[in-house]
């Protein structure tokens, strides 16, 4: 969201970064926590992190986070195309992140479907969406780190 000349500052730009990073961090934490790693490696023994040993709490939090992210993504897509697009173009780094986010959302939707009582996928497909959801998230984290270091933001100012 950084650019040399800032043409117009929208309200969303003030709060979106901490909100997005917090949500993503919690989704990462509760998502990786679907594997029984936090109790096994004594992370849940750290004061305040006892809940990381509770599978269903992490599961609900992950679903809750998905609800908030669905709201946020729909909101931001409309606000970007409705308002911000005039002042900002999406950077290449943003496009890569968007592709990964779409992949995470789509595989995530299939994971939610799989968890429904009357929906059954083949073992191979179940394994595929499980692993790909995880891999896309790892790639997104890697991109976040790389783009963070190289300071590649989401927006390129259209004002020259």
């Amino acid at each position, binding site marked *: 969201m950084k650019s040399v000349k800032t043409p117009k*500052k929208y309200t969303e730009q003030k709060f979106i970064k901490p909100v997005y990073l917090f949500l993503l961090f919690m989704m990462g934490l509760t998502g990786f926590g679907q594997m029984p790693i936090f109790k096994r490696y004594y992370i849940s023994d750290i004061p305040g992190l006892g809940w990381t040993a509770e599978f*269903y709490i992490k599961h*609900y939090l992950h679903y809750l986070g998905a*609800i908030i992210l669905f*709201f946020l993504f729909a*909101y931001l897509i409309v606000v970007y195309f409705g*308002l911000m697009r005039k002042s900002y173009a999406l950077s290449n780094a943003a496009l890569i992140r968007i592709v990964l986010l779409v992949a995470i959302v789509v595989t995530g939707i299939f994971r939610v479907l799989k968890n*429904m009582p009357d929906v059954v996928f083949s073992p191979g497909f179940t394994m595929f969406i499980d692993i790909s959801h995880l891999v896309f998230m790892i790639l997104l984290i890697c991109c976040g780190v790389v783009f963070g270091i190289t300071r590649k933001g989401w927006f390129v100012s259209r004002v020259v």
Partner: protein
Amino acid sequence: MYKCDRCYNRIAEGELPACIEQCPEDVQTIGPRSEILQEAHRIADEEGAYIYGEKENGRTNTIYISPVPFETLNQAIDRGPGQPHLDPVEDKMAHADNLAKAMLIAPFAGLAAAVSRVYKATKDISKQPEGSNEVG
């Protein structure tokens, strides 16, 4: 230690699980759930027996038939940590299933919020003088 997979590899080749094939009393049958349930009801009706697993514990993949009611069996079981029981069990995924419904609504709520936001902002811009640097 291995968890029983009902001889997955044998079933894939059209064979029966080893325990069913070897059982001298022929106490087990295996097949699609609907067929097994039908068979269970037939036996239960014929012998006045009781069925466990059709609705209990989130609908189990093994259906049991017993001449003794399962409540009576449940009372006779040794209790304690790690011991199995036949008590009613809550559906642990019920909350998640409700949250999944909320997931359907969330993007539409976001869409509605954004549309009203964009609408207000464009209305404000047409009112505001040029050079204003703040929207919303």
